[in-house]
């Protein structure tokens, strides 16, 4: 039990103190058990206050601190640092969020915001009094990385990882490196050839001694955790065992393969996918010839196999619009007098790719917009494609057009073998079947498995630039973890009480990270937690029938004391806040219903009334009644009782 606690309540320059009576809370908290010092400060995070806190801790011999300010996302590390510098354990500190959760959220009700802050700070004080001193865990890490998939993203990431000092194992399933780009022709924006890009990258890889490339290699069993993964690789019937600190998955994507008959696909040799069409363009010389006949017009049909609101692939593949327009411009550049029809849903040539669209429309390419519910129809008559489409830019006028060739602009789909990779590395797969990151913006290359990162189009549709960028950010993340040779892990992990545990397997079954395994101890089987893989998510604690597993910093004592602290009744005086709103006085507790509920309940009283009727009876504005009634309905205080006689309003009655 910590008995010498310091409490610091932040004004945040008015952000908090305009709505929460910080001064009064500061005085009230001083009376709490174990609190030695309680202050309200203008900016808790300022250098001056940090110094003052260190002074207080040393002078008053404090053993724990509570800071009530903003979200822990912002300043946990700041105040852990303060604790450490003052010589107390950094885990004997608790952050209470009274800005995002009180003053900002309840700026319309300063009194309630103050009451809520009171509860939260008390909860924080109670929690910190049970806090333990914890030490972060150090594990050794292999300075080696397995990069799975040697496409442009994997190759580029391998180069960077190697240059930053890790040994890289670049594992490729195919016979050659380069992936999809190796067969591509001219690329936007540099105009370079795909083959040249790959050749140049491969040259750089060969010059780096700490990259080992395995081609015709397949990923086998994977075990271990961050810092020490053990990976089996089958290279031409030879089994290799690799020990790496981290894994970067850059397995890429597949192009959507149109079904037979989809926009005439496979019904005529004049219906191409964009990839095959590009090969035809590459091979053409002077004149674009197909089957011995010159090609005079081409119809590109966009979003094939993509953006299907009812189908499998709901997403947009981002790069296909640009790819199709780029192809069209290549055709114009190489061959003269070829007309192009772009039958599209939305043109998404974002950023500089817009220049391609502009150039194409300047060249006279015709753009025809359709909607998913009325897609173009491709009929093949005497092996000649004949297209009908409703143009949404001409008030859905039905248009027909002749095209010598039809090009299906297909999107990207997840690789068919991605489920296999996923089961080996335990990377979750999204509803789009691509690999899932933790958060698309905050943690875009991290997976829920510590040490396993994803980059490039295996995560979702990306163009080459974006693929390489994401793989490089994965490389940077990996380097940040592995460079020291050891990894410091948060000690907030699950702990097993070996006496109480009887290995019922329930915790292991729910663990998403495969962190709980049985071991023998004192003649019985008990659960053991792998600290390196455990994320402290806490899912194991509630399922344990013997209450034998708990999470550090979230022990039962801590959580229960927080509830006690939060639910205490506050005695807050009415005061005029200096710059902010007025705090109305009176007694209020967190568990009480709003006063207005009582009025509503008494007015309904056994009958069934509509909102205007309740409003009239109680004399409270009807929209206020509506808001509260909806909440009461949600919490099963009231329930709807059918329509009134002229069917304009629902009636509500009390729920028994």
């Amino acid at each position, binding site marked *: 039990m910590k008995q010498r606690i310091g409490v610091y309540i932040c004004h945040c320059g008015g952000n908090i103190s305009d709505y929460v009576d910080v001064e009064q809370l500061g005085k009230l908290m001083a009376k709490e058990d174990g609190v030695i010092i309680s202050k309200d400060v203008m900016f808790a995070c300022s250098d001056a206050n940090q110094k003052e806190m260190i002074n207080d801790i040393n002078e008053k011999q404090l053993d724990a601190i509570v800071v009530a300010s903003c979200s822990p996302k912002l300043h946990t590390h700041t105040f852990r640092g303060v604790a450490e510098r003052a010589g107390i354990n950094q885990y004997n500190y608790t952050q209470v969020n009274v800005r995002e959760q009180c003053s900002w959220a309840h700026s319309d009700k300063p009194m309630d915001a103050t009451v809520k802050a009171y509860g939260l700070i008390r909860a924080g004080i109670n929690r910190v009094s049970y806090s333990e001193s914890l030490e972060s865990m150090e594990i050794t890490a292999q300075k080696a990385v397995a990069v799975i998939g040697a496409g442009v993203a994997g190759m580029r990431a391998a180069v960077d990882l190697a240059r930053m000092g890790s040994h890289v194992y670049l594992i490729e399933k195919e016979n050659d490196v380069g992936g999809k780009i190796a067969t591509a022709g001219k690329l936007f924006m540099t105009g370079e050839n795909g083959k040249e890009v790959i050749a140049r990258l491969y040259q750089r890889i060969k010059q780096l001694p700490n990259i080992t490339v395995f081609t015709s290699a397949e990923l086998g069993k994977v075990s271990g955790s961050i810092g020490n993964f053990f990976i089996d690789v089958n290279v031409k019937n030879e089994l290799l065992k690799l020990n790496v600190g981290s894994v970067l998955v850059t397995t890429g994507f597949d192009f959507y393969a149109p079904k037979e008959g989809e926009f005439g696909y496979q019904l005529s040799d004049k219906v191409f996918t964009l990839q095959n069409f590009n090969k035809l363009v590459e091979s053409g010389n002077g004149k674009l010839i197909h089957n011995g006949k010159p090609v005079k*017009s081409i119809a590109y049909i966009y979003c094939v196999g993509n953006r299907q609101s009812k189908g499998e692939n709901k997403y947009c593949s981002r790069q296909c619009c640009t790819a199709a327009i780029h192809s069209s411009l290549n055709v114009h550049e190489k061959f003269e007098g070829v*007309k192009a*029809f772009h039958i599209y849903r939305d043109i998404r040539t974002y950023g500089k790719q817009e220049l391609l669209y*502009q150039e194409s*429309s*300047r060249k*006279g390419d*015709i*753009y*025809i*917009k359709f909607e998913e519910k009325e897609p173009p129809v491709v009929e093949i008559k005497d092996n000649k494609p004949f297209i*009908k489409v409703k*143009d949404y*830019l*001409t008030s859905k*006028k*039905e*248009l*027909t*057009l002749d095209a010598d060739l039809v090009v299906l602009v297909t999107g990207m789909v997840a690789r068919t073998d991605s489920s296999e990779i996923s089961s080996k590395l335990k990377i979750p797969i999204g509803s789009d079947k691509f690999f899932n990151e933790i958060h698309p913006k905050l943690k875009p290359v991290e997976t829920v498995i510590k040490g396993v990162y994803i980059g490039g189009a295996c995560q979702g549709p990306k163009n080459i630039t974006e693929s390489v960028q994401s793989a490089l950010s994965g490389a940077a993340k990996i380097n940040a973890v592995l460079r020291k040779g050891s990894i410091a892990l948060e000690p907030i992990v699950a702990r097993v009480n070996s006496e109480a545990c009887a290995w019922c397997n329930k915790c292991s079954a729910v663990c998403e990270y495969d962190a709980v395994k049985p071991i023998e101890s004192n003649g019985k089987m008990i659960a053991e937690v792998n600290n390196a893989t455990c994320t402290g998510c806490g899912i194991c604690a509630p399922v344990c029938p013997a209450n034998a597993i708990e999470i550090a910093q979230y022990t039962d004592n801590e959580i229960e004391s927080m509830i006690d602290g939060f639910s205490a009744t506050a005695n807050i005086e009415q005061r005029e806040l200096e710059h902010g709103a007025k705090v109305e006085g009176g007694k209020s507790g967190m568990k009480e219903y709003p006063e207005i509920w009582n009025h509503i309940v008494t007015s309904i009283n056994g009958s069934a009334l509509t909102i205007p009727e309740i409003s009239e009876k109680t004399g409270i504005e009807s929209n206020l009644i509506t808001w509260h009634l909806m909440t009461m309905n949600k919490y099963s205080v009231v329930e709807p009782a059918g329509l009134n006689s002229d069917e304009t309003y629902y009636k509500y009655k009390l729920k028994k």
Partner: protein
Amino acid sequence: MSHINPEFVEEIKKYGAEDFHLCFNCGNCTAICSQSTKDESFPREMVRYSTLGLEDDIKSSLKPWMCYYCGECSTDCPRQAHPGELMMSLRRWLTSKYDWTGLSGLLYKHLSAYIIGFLLVIVGLIVFAAKLDWNQEKIMHFGHLFEMLAIAGVFAIILLPNIFRMWLYTIVRPKVKATVKVYFKAFSELLVHMFTQKRFLECEKTRETQIRWFEHFILVLGYLSLLFTTVFLDWFSSKNIFVIWLGYLESVVIFVVTFIFIMNRINKKEANHKFSQASDWFFVIWLFLMGITAFAVRLFIDLNILESNFWLFMVHLTVLVQWAIIIVPFGKWTHFLYRSFAMYFEKIKELAMQIKK
């Protein structure tokens, strides 16, 4: 169902259209256009039809004639697709479609055709004058006679059949069911628009619009009344002081206003003057020359020096003949008729729709 014709873009560009296919259908042009209404919206629709090459839809439309080219759409176009200039080009294209002889199209597309036509007129006049032994009196008499014949002939042979074709494309083929009563009821529309260009004033209500409308209005009045003064009041031979001064006034109006128009086209300040086709230049310059030579001829008569400077009358006659048999039937002059008839047909369509409902 309409068939897309990608070749149309090149065709319409020969009539002066700029890169209108740069349009990405934002609709700013339609939003800014004061003439465009919910039921009759343009110019975006016309830009779209032109990009797709839906010739039949354009041919049956009266919308190009609803535009008076204030140029707002071209100024505000984020893609520099110049919708205003496209509408202008569509009017040229429509003129050539209405013309049964096909000469309009030839003249619009080939400057050389214009020049050959003008040269042929000069040669013809010299041969004709030589045949009359350069007898001044006979030539002047012929000049007067020619005016009457030209008006009657051009109307009967070229313009009336063309208006009939316009009616065919815009009323008959789109199956507008209009009773004779409707034709009578809407008729006032034709006269009002022909003599006042009232709709012009509905363009963006600014001082510039009012000035443009006024210039155009007095030019039309001046032109029509000078025609009347020379043909029916025989200005050049008249002794009536009122007729003489009226003729002076009318010819001054014509060459002053056309001079302003020519300067506008040279200065290219406003969007509607940025692009000028040969047909535009010939129209304003020839009108200017007609006004100034007519003025000079009458002045020379009053000063009694025409006989010694008969070349002046020959110049005037040349300009007049070129105007009457090239520019009036096949050039820009026809917009005077087609635009007024477009308003008339539009009214007929509107009334027919009302009856149908």
